[in-house]
């Protein structure tokens, strides 16, 4: 049984067989479900009620900590492995995609909260951290990326 139909230097352009696509999609969905459950539990157990994703700043801060850590971890592992061990890099792509989806969710939570509330210091801390990490992350990846194959 093979997962890959045609390899490519760019892991995102690797062509999968039917069973390969199925397994990778399932992996992505399972990861998303797990991550959402972790976010739910951290908000429920560590933060005082109410558990409101869009109305409680402490819940949003806790989610920001978890999501940013996950993003940094997924990014670092993906980039380092995609260069050296391409056969394993395929399995890590869903982790990266899920970290991007969670970051979008975090942005949505922040937008909705601060649309309805006055800005606080936490807002600037979270946003500046996200911007700094993304900017440095892009620089780090592009520095290592081989432009011309």
């Amino acid at each position: 049984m093979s997962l890959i139909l045609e390899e490519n230097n760019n892991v995102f352009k690797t062509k999968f067989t039917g069973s390969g696509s199925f397994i990778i999609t399932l992996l992505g969905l399972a990861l998303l479900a797990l991550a959402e459950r972790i976010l739910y539990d951290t908000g429920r157990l560590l933060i005082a009620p109410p558990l409101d994703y869009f109305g409680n700043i402490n819940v949003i801060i806790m989610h920001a900590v978890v999501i940013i850590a996950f993003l940094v971890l997924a990014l670092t592992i993906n980039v380092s492995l995609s260069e050296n061990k391409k056969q394993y890099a395929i399995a890590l792509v869903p982790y990266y995609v899920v970290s991007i989806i969670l970051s979008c969710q975090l942005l949505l939570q922040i937008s909705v909260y601060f649309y309805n509330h006055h800005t606080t210091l936490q807002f600037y801390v979270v946003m500046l951290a996200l911007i700094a990490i993304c900017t440095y992350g892009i620089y780090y990846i592009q520095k290592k990326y081989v432009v011309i194959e």
Partner: protein
Amino acid sequence: MANQQLVEYIKKVQLQGFPEVTIREVLNKNGWQPVDINEAYLEIKRIEDILQKDAPMAPVPVLVGQPVIAVSQEKSILEKAVIEYNSPFSIGLAIILFGALLILVNKVIDDSAISTVNANAKLIFDAMIILPFLVVAFILHGSFSEDNKRYLIISQPYFITSAWLLVRLLWDTSAYILNTNATYGVYVVLILVIAVLTGIVIFIQKYIKN
């Protein structure tokens, strides 16, 4: 100075047997300037001359015949190879960066509306945030696009955000003009916007066009 990546790339495809005409044509199509391509070829020739001087008795490799690959296939391979400046990982992060920047700067401008009672002061305050942001984003974008095309993706979210802010500033100013009698704030903002944009256009025409 010749772009080393371009030099390496041309050497690589030359060894594969692609003719110079095809390589030049495809590189041109993909945004490489003729001056860069010429410099790269000169650099290759210079290296070859040095190698020949160092090893005069060494046999010169000769490529026999044409490559087996058809011309249309050659072009598609080269186009595919040259276009990919950005890693897919970077593209994902750039989307997040753009979203975060958009939310942050919009919030800063909204907050300025709360803290400033006077509409004139608000317009000028917005201009004082947006125009420097535009200038910095433009300088960042311009500096990367010249030599380091691979880093251009960093500046793109900042550049697009600054363009959006400029549109928003003009929109707010227009709304103010339509709803109230013109006062000094409108003039200050519009003159500043026009001055900055004129400066950017002149700068592009003078330094970047060629």
